[in-house]
């Protein structure tokens, strides 16, 4: 690693008084905390458990698909499995994990604040998450649903499975998401430390801010829509039921008005993590700060006008389909801006190939591959061929598992020393990263091929000729699962036996690394005055007086 220009007097210290032991250590002090760091950690634990549950469902699905006919479960159980897999992974893991988990922990640290704007709402958001999770899980244990996570009407209003508690659970989880988003928008606007203008905000905060806008504006629509399905199930009023004049496709419009932007609720935080990781591990300013910052807002904005690409085969007019197809491709432009800037950041950087960087490399590959197949799917004539096949499954898993899980794991390793004060074993980290990246490719590249050959998604059984690729996919998933298990084991061991990390083991210039590890409850004893941009690796700008021209990280800075 390149020698650091930073003062390194506290490098090996474990902060004796930190948010983990102060002001108190009892269980109640956690359950009743207002500290954004503790709430963030509780979210991380809860969402990681959800990830494990969702992953278990995924493995059972892959196990069933090992052979063409019945393998380990009956068709109804299989339908319930893929529904629960989707619901758990999306509502319980991917939507909250980075914003509510890492975002809660990091946003106030990064902007030099003592806490988020509304600490009590923050805690309420956590409890709503728990209640929503319990209600949804109760529904799953009580009978589960077989509608798929999309709850399409009219089937979802008629099926005998227990859809209602899962819908209500998702409704409550939506409120948790709204409160977190609201908190971060207000925090970003009002809590920034003196000297931190919008153009000095870390890119992580920019991306979380863009995510929060989507959470606020899209989630209420989902909440109301799910309630309408609940009402339809309970009283058969026929809001979406053709018998009473209802239009089932209206449900699809409402659902995707939320659920397509929700893809960006999952991906933008992943991009937030990657923007931080790429700077730290190439020891270099981000290339094109403003472009990366504004493209997050661009994705959030355009994301609201693309929902119709889920309805290409639902009787939408050809004109509408064309418009939605073109608008969907705009997302590709903003994503490409980010990808090129991240790649350009590496140029002439001093790269430390640590575990988070390995995940960055995986992320870049999966995002580009998933993104390019997304542009292909946005083309109406191609989508008509691929719709509801494994091609679509593979596409969105490349983005939502590939990209988002890579970013989650990168974040977990990158901020593990800050959150726990200890480091993880680097060697095991790289081994697990290689296993996960290879396992992922073996799981989902066969699914692209299967989809292109015409294997439909969500089917319990398939034709013999698809078996070889399905076996490959299941084998890949097993490697992936083993890799994730290795991470779980060594991180748990590191909690106790890991080497003490010190305040800044990566020699990062991110503001959050200016605090001791683990940070004290109040974050900063004195509100810091920010005098340089985020990730200012150039060094000479650091001591500029605050009111002089802001030393924005220029693209050609190095």
């Amino acid at each position: 690693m390149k020698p650091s220009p930073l003062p390194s007097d506290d490098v090996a210290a474990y902060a004796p008084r930190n948010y983990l032991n102060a002001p108190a250590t009892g269980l109640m002090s956690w359950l009743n905390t207002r500290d954004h760091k503790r709430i963030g950690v509780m979210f991380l634990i809860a969402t990681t458990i959800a990830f494990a549950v969702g992953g278990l469902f995924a493995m059972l699905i892959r196990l069933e698909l090992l052979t063409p006919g019945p393998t380990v479960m009956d068709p109804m159980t299989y339908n319930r499995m893929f529904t629960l897999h989707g619901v758990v992974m999306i509502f319980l893991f991917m939507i909250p994990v980075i914003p509510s988990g890492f975002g809660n922990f990091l946003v106030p640290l990064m902007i030099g604040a003592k806490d988020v704007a509304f600490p009590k709402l923050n805690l309420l958001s956590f409890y709503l998450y728990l209640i929503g999770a319990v209600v949804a899980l109760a529904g799953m244990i009580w009978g589960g649903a077989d509608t798929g996570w999309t709850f399409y009407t009219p089937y979802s209003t008629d099926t005998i499975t227990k859809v209602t508690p899962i819908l209500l659970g998702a409704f409550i989880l939506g409120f948790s998401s709204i409160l977190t988003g609201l908190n971060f928008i207000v925090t970003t606007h009002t809590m920034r430390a003196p000297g931190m203008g919008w153009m000095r905000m870390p890119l992580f905060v920019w991306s979380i801010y863009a995510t929060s806008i989507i959470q606020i504006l899209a989630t209420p629509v989902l909440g109301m829509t799910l309630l309408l399905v609940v009402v339809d199930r309970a009283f058969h009023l026929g809001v979406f039921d053709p018998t009473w004049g209802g239009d089932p496709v209206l449900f699809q419009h409402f659902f995707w008005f939320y659920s397509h932007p929700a893809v960006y609720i999952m991906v933008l935080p992943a991009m937030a993590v990657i923007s931080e990781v790429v700077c730290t591990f190439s020891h270099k300013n981000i290339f094109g700060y403003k472009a990366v910052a504004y493209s997050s807002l661009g994705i959030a904005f355009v994301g609201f006008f693309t929902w119709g690409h889920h309805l290409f085969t639902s009787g939408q007019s050809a004109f509408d389909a064309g418009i939605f197809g073109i608008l969907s491709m705009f997302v590709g432009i903003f994503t490409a801006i980010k990808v090129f800037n991240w790649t350009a950041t590496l140029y002439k950087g001093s790269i430390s190939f640590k575990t988070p960087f390995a995940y960055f490399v995986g992320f870049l590959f999966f995002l580009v591959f998933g993104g390019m197949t997304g542009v292909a799917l946005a083309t109406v004539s191609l989508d008509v061929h691929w719709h509801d096949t494994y091609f679509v499954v593979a596409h969105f898993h490349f983005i939502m598992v590939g990209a988002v899980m890579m970013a989650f794991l990168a974040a977990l390793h990158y901020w593990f020393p800050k959150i726990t004060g200890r480091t993880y074993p680097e060697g095991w980290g790289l081994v697990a990263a290689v296993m996960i990246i290879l396992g992922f490719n073996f799981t989902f590249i066969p699914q692209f091929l299967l989809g292109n050959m015409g294997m439909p998604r969500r089917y319990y059984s398939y034709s013999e000729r698809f078996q070889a690729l399905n076996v490959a996919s299941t084998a890949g998933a097993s490697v992936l699962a083993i890799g994730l298990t290795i991470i779980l084991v060594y991180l748990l061991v590191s909690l106790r036996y890991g080497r003490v990390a010190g305040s800044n083991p990566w020699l990062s210039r991110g503001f959050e690394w200016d605090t001791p590890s683990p940070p004290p409850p109040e974050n900063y004893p004195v509100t810091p005055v920010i005098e340089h941009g985020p990730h200012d690796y150039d060094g000479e700008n650091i001591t500029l007086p605050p009111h002089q021209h802001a030393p924005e990280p220029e693209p050609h800075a190095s």
Partner: protein
Amino acid sequence: MQASPLAHHFENLEKQAHAARLGMWLFLATEILLFTVLFAAYALYRFLFPEAFALSSRALETWVGFVNTIVLVTSSLTVATGLHSATRGDGRKTALWFGISVLLAVVFLVLKAYEYNHHFHTGQLPGRFYTYEGVKAPGAPMYFTLYFLITGLHAIHVIVGMTVLVVIGALARKGRYTAAYHVPVELGALYWHLVDLIWIFVFPLIYLI
């Protein structure tokens, strides 16, 4: 007087008030989006069944909606007056004006209940419960599905708003707020105005067009 209302993580009251206001406006945006779903459904089904929607709308008692509109707009005025008293530090007057607003809200709900009761007798009910003989055009049951969903959700908001006004009015009476610090009064008033504003859209959609 209570301890200082300044929370530990804010530098000063002004910043805290700014944060609270911004948070409230964002919350109001989510409330509007909640209703937007129902309004969008209304727009679609009105487009599909223009005749049934027009006839069903005519079959309502417009005077009830009209009086309720007057009642709610008046309650917004009294809430605004209460807020004005709060800005001058007169908590007792704030409580009085908020009390009047709550009474007006009760009048609104009583009229609404009268109307619902009437629908139950005539059979102007949602979906499969629709038995009204006056309008038989297809789509009339859907009109009443939306009618009950929209006015029902609005009525829930009226009840929540009343509760907010009662709590804040009581605290104002105890002298919790001063001319310098009365943000909760302001936020409560904002919420009530939203409840009123939504009704101003509901009234023409349901009763007039």
